[in-house]
């Protein structure tokens, strides 16, 4: 009986602790896998007028039109031209999909909860407000992104 409970717990943890990592320049970021619907290569983005600077436009994802934001611009980093390695990570927030353009997608990793630290308080980095925490993985550090903050108005 006890073992069963433990197993269940473990399974839940497996689901919960998975993160997808991606790179922007040399920095590595991670997204909770529960948010992620899809990862696609970069495709034609149709521009939409009168939008925030980081909203690149909309794409056609198998018949559904979803908006796409460029995470570099969102983090106030310089724009980098898209290439073969550029990916769009499709996440689902509040039941609506949105694509996030990243330099490249790396891998899926496990970070258990006790290996996640709160983001440092003093850092004045623009990206900081989109951080959920800092995770340790294989002696490196990844920044865990707060998906909800990405779509929040400034």
């Amino acid at each position, binding site marked *: 009986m006890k073992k069963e409970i433990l197993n269940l717990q473990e399974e839940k943890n497996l689901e919960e602790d998975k993160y997808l990592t991606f790179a922007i320049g040399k920095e590595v970021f991670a997204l909770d896998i529960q948010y992620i619907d899809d990862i696609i290569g970069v495709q034609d983005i149709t521009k939409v*007028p*009168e939008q925030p600077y980081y*909203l690149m436009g909309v*794409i*056609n994802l198998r018949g559904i*039109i979803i908006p796409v934001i460029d995470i570099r611009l969102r983090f106030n980093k310089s724009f980098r031209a898209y290439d073969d390695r550029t990916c769009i990570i499709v996440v689902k927030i*509040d039941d609506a999909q*949105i694509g996030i353009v990243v330099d490249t997608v790396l891998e899926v990793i496990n970070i258990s909860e006790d290996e996640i630290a709160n983001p440092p308080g003093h850092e004045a980095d623009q990206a900081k407000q989109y951080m959920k925490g800092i995770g340790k993985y294989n002696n490196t550090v990844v920044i865990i992104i707060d998906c909800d903050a990405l779509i929040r108005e400034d």
Partner: protein
Amino acid sequence: MGTHDPMMEMYLFETNQLLNRLEQLCMDSERKQDITDEIPEIFRIMHTIKGNSMMMLLEDIGKVAHRIEDLFDYLKGVDLSKIYIERIIDYNFEAIDFFKEEISKLEMGAEANGDSKDFVQKIDDFLTEIHGEKKPESNTKPTVENQKYFIAPSNSKTDILFRESIPEYYYIKIFFDDDAQMENVRAFSIVHNLKDLTSEMQYFPSDIVENEETIEYIKAEGFEILFKTSESEAKMHSYFETLAFVKKLDMKELDQGEYQEMLELRLPGEPETIEEVVHEEFIKTAEKMTSKQNFISVDVHKVDKLMDLVGELVVAESMVINNPDLATLKLNNFQKASRQLRLVINEMQDVIMSVRMVPLNMTFQKMSRIVRDMKKKVGKDVNLELIGEETEVDKNVIEKIADPLMHIIRNAMDHGIEDKKTRLSMGKSPEGRIQLSASHVGGDVVISVKDDGKGLDKEAIYYKAYEKGLITKPMEECSDQEIYQLIMHAGFSTKVEVTEFSGRGVGMDVVAKNIESLGGTIQINSEQDKGSEISILIPLTLAIVDGMMMRVGETIFTLPIMAVKESFIVEQSEVIEDSNGQEMVMIRGECYPVIRLLDHYNIESSNELAKGIFVMIEHDDKQVLLYADELIGEQQVVVKSLSKFVKKVKGISGFALLGDGSISMILDPSGFMMA
């Protein structure tokens, strides 16, 4: 809704239909001030409601229906003097309201807990009154009084006592009350509920659901059930005691042998042939049942899904037919086949669209009820005329149009129509007129409310709006339309005092919002002392649009073809500028403002010198010229709403997928009109 058991769903569905019919009958009889023709049908409806409600153990509903039934039973035989009609109809409406409230409680999954006592008393008093001192003769059907009151058996107790009981066999024979009605349905509900308690069951007659003639058989011979159960006898007894309308009940315990014997005896033989009893009412219900089977109720979501799929199909079709791989090939047969496909898809689209279409008459009927109720309360005599009730609109529209219409009609009654004295002194007929009409005009449905009241007071509206800072320019510069549109602002009401029906100024802005969400517009016309007319224009469909594609830089816009008036090429030298720098083009002696989409939306473009084209669009009788690089052609597109993560852009109503999978923005003509 999905959580109800099927019996309850059926009950709610049927009762709702009956109530609507009932309301209509009452309205009709009130209009002609004569109820004679309607009495039998009202009686029948009440009787059915009573029966159904009692079966569902909804006593209060049943009691109210029963009282009205009594009343009408009595009315059947007497000469009606007009004095009573008003009151009879009032009672009827009161009963309808009571039913509706209870039904809506049930629909929400709550208990129907309304109390019928007062109402029953009222009808009783009324009956005594019209009878004089004499006790009503026909009021003796003792259905309600005979209704068995029971205390729910406490399950837990019996369970403990008889937990170890072994399967037992029983035979039961049930006779229903003489006036129970629909014995077959009642029998079915017994069997249905019994299923949970028994492990094996046979009942006779066995075709109670399909065969209406079994009613007569059950009446004469009783309804027999053979079953095997592991529940205690006491529990079974208490179950059967809860049944309504049961006159007599024989229950016998059997051993297995006897059980088998009886089963064999019953099984091969159908119930003895029943002599055909031709009963007028009976045939009618049978007819009703067969006609009902032509309809199925479908979850709206499924229809929505189907609609989406057809949309995808339209896109997929044009992806195939306009496939660039085929562009250079000569494919006669392919062309032929694809034309065929197009036809089929078009038809399919029409059919699915029509599935969602519902006639407006229910909504209109609701309005006449409102007028009726208000008439009494505000003391104005108003005649509501309904035109084009059969006009069909999308289901979404029906849902959202009722509230706005109600507000508009209330306004017309309260603010528009004058009281009798004023009307007479102005030489108008003492009876006010409101005309509610619906019709299809082009791709729109137009629903308008026209009254012959005092009309809108332009000055009062202007000053009020000025006071509230809603408008700043002097009155002389405002067009009539502009001033009328002001009443659609939140918190605007010119009426000094607040009445029960209107005056709080929350009406018209709700109207405006609801209509806007349907993609519709409101037009107001008014003439002082002659009346006003408020028209609502709603597009027939919101899902698929016939579009005209135009290219601006790299961007492709889709313009609803309905809005396009004409397109032409003009030499740049003919474009003139007014003092504000607004570009204009003079066509046939009239100046039209020009909007260059390129500048308007800050679109990047490589060749600025491209010789573009002007497209004249029209909305609300206003015209604007849009300037684009070129027209690409016409195509049906599927409208996709703006994602919530995309900011609303004025002039863009949504996105559309084009045949090649690329995305186009759909322009909303109203967004370009200059105030």
